[in-house]
């Protein structure tokens, strides 16, 4: 079964699942209310978006220079930087490092790039125990599921689901009070933090002028993971770079507001290397893996370059009428929602993932909410165009579009085909073929009633009405 067929089946099942829709609606309603309040803390939200866009545009326009500056400063502090062209190279680097240092246990905080390269499963295959430490990630890891959402990985679960899961994994629970559930997870992970030999984090930003990695969490899990184990590994994409530490004065509040509605996230951490000589605690080793994995291809397309501006806040997922109905798992991709539909064909192949560009109403809600002003719905159109130009399309579709073009490029052909079509539809519906496999409008009438077929063309009706006035 192809990815497209999988997607269609999942989408149909999920959008018909009323319980699922209720859960996701509650989650996103909660988010919407928080963001409405959060934006009021800005005197001018649009100006904030423009400033963020400017920062990311500057960073992308001089990406080579900023990455080299970042690398130089990390090395000055005794850290190591590895440039990985593919996910395979990134995984191999971490696996070899873990093996060389005898790592048995890893505490990991949330990283979409780690999901992108399937890092955790690769480590597990080597017999290394990996603890997801973000609560949402911890929950989906226990369920052996992929994250449902970039920011809220367990948004599809109720507290009852989570209580049942914890009862199954940790024994008697007796309550579904979120406070107790959080305390249970804290206890379960606390020992791991103190015994793990390696901590893996992602990066929200890479700050060129100070050679520091910015990691944002509300729970403080990344801070523990990059403080206690003796090795800290950062896995991230090359596009996370920003020029200056002062850029964070706007990026941190905007990321928080777009991501959760908070004015600023609880822990915004900057880390630039292993423990310095004069510092009493911290890791002995610091490794940053800069991943390309298709990002330079996106950079090479000037029209789609700005897709690399994404700060992974999840706002476009929450705004998207498709995501709101089918949820995150239906996509079966690392990145879901509008940004995922734009990005995935670039990361994993246009041919297999071109269907995602069609999973959109082109309503533009994603573009409106994007805090770095990525023109998301136009990029979905770009992907559609690219798919027609480069990917294998089915021959009936090509013939249909040729026929359509032939029809609409001449006024008399257009009138003639319309005349035929109205008659064919009327006769077939008179024969009772509506919503049967022989219905010419089958794709529409499968789930809907057919509209009444007019007797005359729109042009004729127009002429008649304007003549009457």
């Amino acid at each position, binding site marked *: 079964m192809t990815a497209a067929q999988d997607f269609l089946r999942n989408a149909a099942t999920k959008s018909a699942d009323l319980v699922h829709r209720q859960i996701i609606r*509650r*989650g996103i309603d909660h988010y919407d209310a928080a963001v409405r309040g959060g934006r009021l803390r*800005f*005197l*001018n939200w649009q*100006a904030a978006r423009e*400033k963020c866009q400017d920062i990311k545009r500057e960073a992308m*326009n001089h990406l*080579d220079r900023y*990455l080299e500056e970042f690398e130089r400063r990390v090395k000055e502090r005794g850290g190591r930087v*590895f*440039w*990985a*062209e593919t996910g395979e190279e990134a995984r191999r680097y971490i696996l070899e490092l873990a093996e060389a240092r005898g790592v048995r246990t890893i505490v990991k905080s949330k990283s979409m790039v780690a999901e992108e390269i399937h890092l955790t499963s690769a480590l597990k295959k080597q017999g290394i125990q990996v603890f997801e*430490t973000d*609560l*949402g990630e911890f*929950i989906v890891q226990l369920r052996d599921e992929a994250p449902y959402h970039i920011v*809220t990985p367990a948004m599809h679960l*109720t*507290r009852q689901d*989570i209580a049942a899961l914890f009862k199954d994994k940790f024994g008697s629970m007796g309550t579904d009070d979120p*406070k107790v559930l*959080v305390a249970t*997870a*804290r206890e379960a992970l*606390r020992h791991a933090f103190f015994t793990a030999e390696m901590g893996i984090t992602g990066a929200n930003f890479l700050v060129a*002028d*100070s050679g520091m990695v910015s990691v944002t969490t*509300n*729970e*403080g899990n990344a*801070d*523990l993971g*990059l*403080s206690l184990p003796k090795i800290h590994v950062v896995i991230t994409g090359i596009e996370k770079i920003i020029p200056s*530490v002062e850029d964070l*004065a*706007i990026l*941190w509040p905007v990321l928080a507001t777009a991501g*959760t509605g908070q004015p*600023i996230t*609880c*822990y915004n*951490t*900057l*880390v*630039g*290397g*292993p423990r*310095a000589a004069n*510092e*009493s*605690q*911290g890791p002995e080793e*610091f490794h940053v893996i800069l991943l390309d994995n298709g990002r330079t291809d996106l*950079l*090479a397309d*000037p029209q789609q*370059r700005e897709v690399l501006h994404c700060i992974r806040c999840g706002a476009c997922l929450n705004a998207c009428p498709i995501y709101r109905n089918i949820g995150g798992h239906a996509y079966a991709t690392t990145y879901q929602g509008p940004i995922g539909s734009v990005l995935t064909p670039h990361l994993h192949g246009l041919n297999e993932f071109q269907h995602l560009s069609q999973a959109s109403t082109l309503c533009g809600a994603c573009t409106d909410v994007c805090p770095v002003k990525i023109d998301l719905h136009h990029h979905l159109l770009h992907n559609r165009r690219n798919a027609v130009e480069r990917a294998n399309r089915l021959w009936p579709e090509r013939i249909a579009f040729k026929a359509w073009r032939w029809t609409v490029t001449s006024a008399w052909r257009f009138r003639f085909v319309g005349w035929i079509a109205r008659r064919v539809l009327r006769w077939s519906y008179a024969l009772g073929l509506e919503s049967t496999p022989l219905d010419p409008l089958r794709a529409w009438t499968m789930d809907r009633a057919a509209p009444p077929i007019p007797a005359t063309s729109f042009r004729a009706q127009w002429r008649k009405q304007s003549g009457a006035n």
Partner: protein
Amino acid sequence: MAQTESSGRERILARIRTALKTPAPAGAARHFSSEPLPIFAPISDALERFKLECANNNTELIVTPDSGASAAVLDEVLASLPTGEIFVQDAHRLRRLALSSQRRENIRWSNEGAANENAQAAVTLAEILVAQTGSVIVSAACGGRGASIVAPVHIVMATASQLVTTLEAALAQLREHGTATRNSYLCLITGSSRTADIEKILVMGAHGPRRFVVILALSEN
């Protein structure tokens, strides 16, 4: 390994440079005026703003007249906690604080090694306080990396002279004063650890402290 490492680097950089030879289409003109619009409202009274933000973000802020009064407050806060290790940053200002003898017995100074897994509280200084967001910036110098996150209670001893109005000014200061160069670790802390990963319901005290206390002395002395 070293060979492939450096060639991977060169290939990525070469691809970036080739890609950037074609400039992106210019963005549409956005402002009618050339002056960018202000993003945040100006802050008139930094201390008042800091108090307000702390109240909103679940920071327990206690303002005292001087360091003597701050020490008394600290003693009270520590007395309210279960008995156990109190991890304290090894700093002259904190060594000087007059704490009662029961408290002194349980202190583990940061120069004696990292905080224990079961420490009851951590007491540290801060680099900068940020009024705009009601935040505290700590560095590796503030008791070592992780000092502010390990214990269930983190207490920051600060003075009003450390208060900076905006986040932008605070970050500029980190760069200009070399704080970001001297320290391998910095953290902007805003309130106590929290999560809303279960049904978007806010729960305080995820992996980090359940209580975040800032004792702020108005005078340096």
